[in-house]
């Protein structure tokens, strides 16, 4: 399979799986069993998933298969985290984080 066909099969499978999780309880009128233990597990999905998506990208940069420490990114991410916690504003978090990264990169390359 070409990479493009492979990627389309990923899109299709992800779409079907996501649709099923979104729709089945609504279609079954809420009668799909969702025992308390399952709810207890899934309650933690957003925090766990988002943290795992934030942390590695804030500590490292990846070039090819190698991971290297990225101090400018780490500092920028800490500043952006302060903004995110205080303002809960996506655009502002993004702006501060990117500006801090560029400032940090400029400062590091000046040495």
């Amino acid at each position, binding site marked *: 399979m070409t990479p493009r066909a492979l*990627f389309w099969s990923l899109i299709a499978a992800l779409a079907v799986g996501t649709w099923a999780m979104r729709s089945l309880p609504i279609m079954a009128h809420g009668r799909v069993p969702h025992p308390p233990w399952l709810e207890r597990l899934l309650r933690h999905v957003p925090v766990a998933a988002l*943290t795992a998506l934030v942390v590695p990208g804030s500590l490292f940069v990846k070039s090819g298969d190698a991971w290297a420490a990225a101090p400018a990114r780490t500092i920028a991410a800490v500043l952006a985290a302060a903004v*995110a916690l205080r303002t809960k504003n996506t655009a502002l978090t993004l702006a501060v*984080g990117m500006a801090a990264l560029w400032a940090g990169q400029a400062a590091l390359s000046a040495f």
Partner: protein
Amino acid sequence: MSRRRHSLIEGMRDVSPILIGVVPFGLVAGAAVVQVGFGLPEALGMSFIVCAGASQIVATTLFGDGAPLWLALGTALVVNTRMFIYSASIAPVLSHASARLRPVLGHMLVDQNYVTTMTRGRFREDVDVIPYYVGAWVALSGTWQVSNIAGALLGPMVPPSWGLDFAVPLVFLAMLAPTLKGTTSVTVAIVTGVASALLVPTLPMQTGLLVAIIAGIAFGAWRDGRPVEEAA
């Protein structure tokens, strides 16, 4: 104006303040598809058929990093399992929908639509909740598709030296901040953060992300189940 139309418009109006927050996320998701070597059709496939931002980015970047298909799919689906609980909890609110309409309403269940309908729409006397929910989705989805398209078109024009890939953790950071309520969620974040820092760069075949997420979920469930004096 008919009640149905009024409800539709009110749904759109109630989500309008949060639309601006959707835009950067959509730009990043659209740009990610182009960054791994595909184009506008694939970006639209993701934004329109999948229509679940975090999982779009996860599936796209894992695929681009050479992860096997099952892993890119599995990790993205784990990220979306929260929607199962959304669906179960919103089902009674949408129970007047016909059997034919329900599969469509399911596809419309995105985070912001769920929150807005559950916290505002269903309590409003002046609206019917189903057209309200549809209206909220139309506004959200329209914004989502346009920003994904813009990301796919504009992304390639940004030089790599700008480090735009850093926008991915930043938008997730902005989404994470409001979910950190109570000591349980903070400790889950700490455990997951340490696990991901150690595992993502080291585990083979890009499995680190999935393992770190599952470790965080398991830790949270374990902590909930533990008898503690003060409930978090």
